[in-house]
């Protein structure tokens, strides 16, 4: 019932200039590596990208940035590279910073038919300056609206032919909410299995949220290798 692709280029071929896309991952963990590479190849421009971070210089969303394919970035922690800073200061790149929990909840709201909600995060800070504050039980909260995307690019450890997804460890992160908030959700999976293989109790993203699937091999680059010595 789902579109199963074998070419990453084909899987993203209808992502057009000016599209709003969500891209899963936290740092470089759980990012749809090959879908991002295909976007770089596609040369699509003027993207609005919603993602917690913006990759590093030479990997992940950093590649789209270097290629000047992003007009606007919505995230919670960005600018881990010089090119990001340069583009922001020169006005080539617009940035909207959102507290991480607010970002996660805005995306969840987008997929859940909740147009807006209130959160304590950001009250009394610069991000509330143009916002709407309201009291509930004598405490102040900030109104936040839902985020949706034309396309969501997510990565899972396992996907079946019906689009059910299972994530591995902290590679889950933003992927489930983004899968639900995209008009078209494209899942890059490490392993594509037959329907019926995944225990229905273990599904993280029900297949209804996924329109396209493609299997691929990831590099899984490590940003900050921290190890302990054998005792």
């Amino acid at each position, binding site marked *: 019932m789902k579109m199963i692709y074998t070419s990453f280029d084909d899987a993203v071929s209808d992502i057009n200039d000016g599209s709003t896309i969500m891209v899963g991952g936290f740092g470089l*963990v759980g990012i749809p590596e090959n879908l991002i590479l295909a976007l770089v190849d596609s040369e699509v421009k003027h993207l609005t990208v919603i993602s917690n971070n913006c990759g590093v210089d030479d990997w992940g969303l950093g590649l789209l940035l270097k290629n000047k394919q992003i007009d606007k970035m919505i995230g919670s922690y960005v600018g881990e590279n010089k090119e990001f800073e340069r583009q922001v200061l020169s006005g080539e790149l617009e940035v909207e910073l959102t507290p991480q929990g*607010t970002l996660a909840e805005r995306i969840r709201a987008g997929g859940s038919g909740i147009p807006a909600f209130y959160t*304590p995060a950001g009250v009394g800070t610069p991000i509330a300056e143009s916002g709407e504050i309201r009291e509930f039980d004598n405490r102040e909260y900030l109104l936040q609206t839902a985020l949706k995307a034309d396309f969501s690019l997510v990565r899972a450890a396992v996907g079946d032919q019906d689009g059910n997804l299972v*994530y591995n460890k902290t*590679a889950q992160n933003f992927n*489930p909410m983004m899968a639900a908030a995209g008009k078209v959700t494209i899942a890059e999976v490490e392993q594509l299995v037959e329907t019926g293989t995944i225990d229905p109790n273990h599904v993280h993203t029900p297949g209804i949220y996924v329109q396209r699937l493609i299997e691929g091999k990831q590099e899984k680059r490590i940003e900050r*290798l*921290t*190890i302990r010595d054998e005792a």
Partner: protein
Amino acid sequence: MAKKQMDKATIRERIARRAEKEIVSGSYVNLGIGMPTMVANYIQDGKQVVLQSENGLLGIGKSPLKKEVDPDLINAGKETVTAQKGASYFSNAESFAMIRGEHLDLAILGGMEVSVTGDLANWMIPGKMIKGMGGAMDIVHGAKKIVIIMDHVNKHGEPKILNKCNLPLTGKSVVNRIITDRAVIDVVEDGLILIEVAEGWTIDEVIQSTEPKLKISEDIRTGTY
């Protein structure tokens, strides 16, 4: 040890070791990126602590052995970690539901400035590149107790505990306790109370290097760390 001879690493360790005492056995704790993460290294044997990582892990374990490294398993600082027995993984939405819903007992975070009313600034310096607030703005409203660890003064020797923060805020009236290289100060209804003074410092020196007027706790202790 005389204060002048302490290098930066030693001072950080001193603060981290004192911050560790805030952690009650059986509690759920979020440690911020940077110096707060170091606190995990000093958790006393026998203390049962579950560390939460806002990227979707409850039960952070030790750093992995080289052979244990899993690129899919990191903490919020993007460092490779392991998971404790009894750990669970979940989405960032669930993670911040947990944080915002006040299920964590304690968060230990870094600070740039703290005000007399418990305002915290720790995410941006105007004029410098703004990288973002990450999860800090959510965490300061979530955990039941917010402890800020930082140097008592900035590199120019000026107070970082102020009547009013100069930097843009991370949260308003959110800090419960401040732990610095010089002192432990609580934020209460009507101001700041000095409750501990670190080894090598006097009450007077702490008062001098703190902008707001400090009340002195009746139970004040000196040289505790």
